[in-house]
């Protein structure tokens, strides 16, 4: 006689009280396959935990986003935000789809160059660019987005010793009705700083002002904020035309479109409330088309969307190390993946699914990671079937920022696996070894030996 599949016995109260805030939707349905590939097999082959990325989903999301904009506006260009996920294979998927690169450090800049992105298709953002960085960017004809006056003066100075005319844009910050206002980056619109900076660039005549840039915030739930931003940048562009008879080539509205994640404290799951690409595109494109540009002067629209393009294509699969009951009666699961790998669990309630099907009985649990640290909590409260040691789960919507902000703390980073459109798996970043880490360290000779 074959034995039945074992599941821990559970009993759950059915009495009123506060109902599950997600109603009766069963978010704990098993996810045994990703793009037709068995999660169990991926873990068997590449270890647990393991990051999994779907190439098909990346391309599909990118094409959806692109279609939303190109069907409404004649000149659209995406630039992949490297910091969102700068594993080279991921960057190259976006480059194959036609994306430029958007970088915020010389490290990312060098990655883009090494990936084969032409210098003129790299947007160099951020407040921290050294003289050497700027020199490299100018020589490669990259688009330098100036963050502050010190950077502007440094570029003016550099032009004395360089033959090339730098191509620059300024980053503008503004009130779009969104709190908090990101005013630490760039030049303010409302108080006239941005217009001053534009005048300085034009009057010193050492560089070409090719664009205007802003990035109004991240995980923006209001498409209207983008309409306000597009309007203010258009106003600057039209002012430039009026006063200096110059056209800018592009308006870059940055990133910030929300991904289908659920912010902590949100009453509804993200997938139910976040605007789609069409809603962002409608707000932005309508504003630009009605701003007052002549047909020939319409600037190119650049978008640096990060999380919305990749978050959903990323999964983290891992295993239960232990389950226990806490002193207050709550069920707790200890997983082999924690906040060291999933930085975004500090602000999202990530959806977690069991890999294997089980009965329809569930219980609430707190999910801990493996670190010996109190902060290592993946979910404070999630409804899952009873899981036991060795059972596997999939954490969803983790493609953005985790594979760049992960910490090498207590344990090492695991394999990152890409599933290609044919369903073949590829390691795109191999797991770290102790040797990798020790290689970076040096031992002073007086510390080489000891007796205990």
């Amino acid at each position, binding site marked *: 006689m074959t034995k039945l599949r074992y599941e821990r*016995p559970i009993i759950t109260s059915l009495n009123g009280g506060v109902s599950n805030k997600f109603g009766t939707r069963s978010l704990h349905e098993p996810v045994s396959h990703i793009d037709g590939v068995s999660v169990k097999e991926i873990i068997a082959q590449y270890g647990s935990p393991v990051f999994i990325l779907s190439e098909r989903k990346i391309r599909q999301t990118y094409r959806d986003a692109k279609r939303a904009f190109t069907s409404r506006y004649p000149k659209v260009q995406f630039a992949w935000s490297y910091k969102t996920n700068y594993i080279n294979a991921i960057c190259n998927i976006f480059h194959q789809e036609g994306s430029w690169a958007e970088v915020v450090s010389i490290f990312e800049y060098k990655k883009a160059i090494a990936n084969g992105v032409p210098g003129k298709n790299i947007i160099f953002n951020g407040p921290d660019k050294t003289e050497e960085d700027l020199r490299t960017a100018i020589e490669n004809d990259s688009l330098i987005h100036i963050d502050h006056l010190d950077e502007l003066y440094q570029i003016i100075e550099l032009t004395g010793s360089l033959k090339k005319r730098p191509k620059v844009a300024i980053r503008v910050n503004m009130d779009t009705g969104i709190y908090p206002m990101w005013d630490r980056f760039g030049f303010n619109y409302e108080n006239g700083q941005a217009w001053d900076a534009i005048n300085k660039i034009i009057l010193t005549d050492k560089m070409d002002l090719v664009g205007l840039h802003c990035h109004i915030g991240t995980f923006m739930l209001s498409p209207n904020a983008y309409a306000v931003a597009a309007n203010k940048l258009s106003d600057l562009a039209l002012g430039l035309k009026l006063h200096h008879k110059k056209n800018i080539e592009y308006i870059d509205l940055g990133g910030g479109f929300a991904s289908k994640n659920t912010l902590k404290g949100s009453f509804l799951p993200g997938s139910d409330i976040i605007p789609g690409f069409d809603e962002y595109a409608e707000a932005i494109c309508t504003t630009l088309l009605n701003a007052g540009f002549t047909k020939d002067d319409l600037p190119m629209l650049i978008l640096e969307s990060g999380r919305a393009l990749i978050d959903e294509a990323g999964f983290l699969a891992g295993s239960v190390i232990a389950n226990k009951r806490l002193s207050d009666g709550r069920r707790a699961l200890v997983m082999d993946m924690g906040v060291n790998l999933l930085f975004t669990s500090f602000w999202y309630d990530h959806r977690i699914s069991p890999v294997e099907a089980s009965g329809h009985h569930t219980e609430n649990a707190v999910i801990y990671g493996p670190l010996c640290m109190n902060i290592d909590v993946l979910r404070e409260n999630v409804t899952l079937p009873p899981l036991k040691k060795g059972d596997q789960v999939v954490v969803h919507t983790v493609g953005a920022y985790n594979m760049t902000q992960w910490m090498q703390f207590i344990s090492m980073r695991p394999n990152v696996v890409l599933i290609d459109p044919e369903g073949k798996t590829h390691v795109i970043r191999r797991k770290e070894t102790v040797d990798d880490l020790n290689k970076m360290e040096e031992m002073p000779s007086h510390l080489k030996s000891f007796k205990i």
Partner: protein
Amino acid sequence: MLSWVLITSLSEGLKKCNMNVRIKSNVAVSDSGFVFDPSTGDSYSVNPIGVEIIQLLKEKSSTDDVLKSILERYETDEKTIDKDLFEFIQLLLNLQLAEKV
């Protein structure tokens, strides 16, 4: 959700504490996993293995018998079922659906 009473000494296995319990006679259990306690008006949902355990306990089986029966029928090992069964029985006691005999 459940206001559980503190569960102590989970590390002690069933056999060591030689604990036998009985489901209270007025507690109703359906095969589909619906449990109703008429003395409090509280109702509960139990998964199939939980129903099986409750029914065994209703039939006056000892915890040892329950453990053996589960071991025979399910793909698990003694350590696991010992730990889970002990915890489950503690819950039944805390919810006052069962009493020690």
